[in-house]
Structure formats: C-alpha cells, structure tokens
C-alpha cells in the first residue's frame, strides 16, 4: 500500500469513528483532549522544573499554550 493510500485509509477510519460517536461525546471530546494534553504538559514542566509550585507550573503551562497559539497564527 502506498503512503497516500495508507493516509486515505486512516482518514476514512477517523471519519467512521466520528460518525459512530454519541452527539454529547462529540461536542465535549475536544475539551477532554485538551485537558489530557494539559496534564501531560504539566507533568513535563514538573519534570523539567522540580522546584516549581502548582502556581508556577500553571503559569508556565499558560505561557507555553500562548506560544503555541502564536505559532499557529503565523
């Protein structure tokens, strides 16, 4: 299978999964994914800066998200 055919096949699987989801779950899945990503980012920040307290971790997390937003807008 070519790379393009594989990409198409994976995309069609995504489409089929989305069609099968319950309406409420579809509506809120994006926020759940975001929270999961934030938890992982916060774990990374704590690993990188073990001395930071919860407020410091939150502040750095927000700064990194803002940087990602800025990159996305470019």
């Amino acid at each position, binding site marked *: 299978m070519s790379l393009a055919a594989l990409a*198409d*096949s994976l*995309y*069609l699987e*995504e*489409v089929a*999964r*989305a*069609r099968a*989801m319950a*309406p*409420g779950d*579809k*509506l*809120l*899945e*994006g*926020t*759940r*994914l*975001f*929270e999961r*990503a*934030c938890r992982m980012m916060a774990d990374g920040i704590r690993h990188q800066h073990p001395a930071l307290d919860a407020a410091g971790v*939150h502040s750095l*997390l*927000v700064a990194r*998200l803002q940087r990602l937003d800025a990159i*996305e*807008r470019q």
Partner: protein
Amino acid sequence: MTADQAVIAVLDALETAGVPYMIVGSLAANFHGIPRSTRDADFVVELVPGLLQRLADALPAGLTLHPQAAFEAVTGTTRHLVELAGSPFVGELFVRSDDAHDQERFRRRLPVRVFDRVAWVASAEDMIVTKLRWVDQVHRTKDRDDIRNILAVRAEDLDWPYLRRWSDLHGTTSLLEEIHQSIPPSSA
C-alpha cells in the same frame, strides 16, 4: 470543575439567564466533524442590556464572566470571556453581528439533545461557510482541516445549494471545491 463540566455549566447559565445563543467554533466543528483538542468554547450570543449581568449571576462558582468586551479581529465582533478558575480553558461569548451570514446562521441554529438538555449548535453548513471565510482571510490550517472533516463526516446530508449560495457570495467557492476534492472518495 473540569473543562467539559464548565461547558455544560455555561450552557445551563445561558438557558437560565434567557440568553439566545448558539455553539460555534471548535466545539461545533467537533460536533459536525472529527473531534480535535480545543482550549476554548465559543458561543454566539444575542445580548440586550441587563442580560450580561443575569448571565454572570447564573454562572456557578469557579466560572467568572468578564464584563469588559474586547474586539475580536478574526470575527469582527465583540466578545466577552468566561474564565475557569485554575485552568487555561476559556469560554468566549461573541455578540452576534450585523453581518448577513452571521444573522442567517443564528436563525438556522439547531436544537441538539445532549446530556439531558437541549443545546443550540450552528449548523454544519454554516460552520463550513464561516470557516471558508476565515481560511480565505486568516489562512489557519485548523480551519481548513475542520472544513474537510465536516464535509467528510456529513457528506450525505449537507445542503449543497445553501453552501454554494454563500460561498459564491463570499468568493470562496473554489476553496470549497478544492477542499472537497481532497477527501478520499469512499467517504463521500
């Protein structure tokens, strides 16, 4: 309070305060297309004097409505922020504008039953029409992906004459066709 609980709380507060609204942005794109991570919940609201305070009063502890409006460059409207304590997640309330499509998409908003309540969501066609304009003006990759995903997931039941009427008016028909053609054929 988690972010998804915050979304439900804002929906309930909008109902309690009697604010006509519809869910737009990535939540609505996820609803009609393929869910992706999002750090905000966007709503278009019809605000008359007094409603903002009623909405602020209806929000539970942990959610704060900022009364100061800010101008939003992408949508060309004013917005109010709802912040969730201790979280980077935010709600954004965009005041419905005089733009012809903004008004029509509000009239066409859909009542959707989710988690034992009715929520108002922008239609799939109107999400596509709106995001086509943004791709045309702001060139955000995620908007192009959202359009492609909605077209792929909702292929059979989209109102194509409606879509083409607005894309013709906005000069985005060739963009619509280009994105539509990028979808693998068997998903249509």
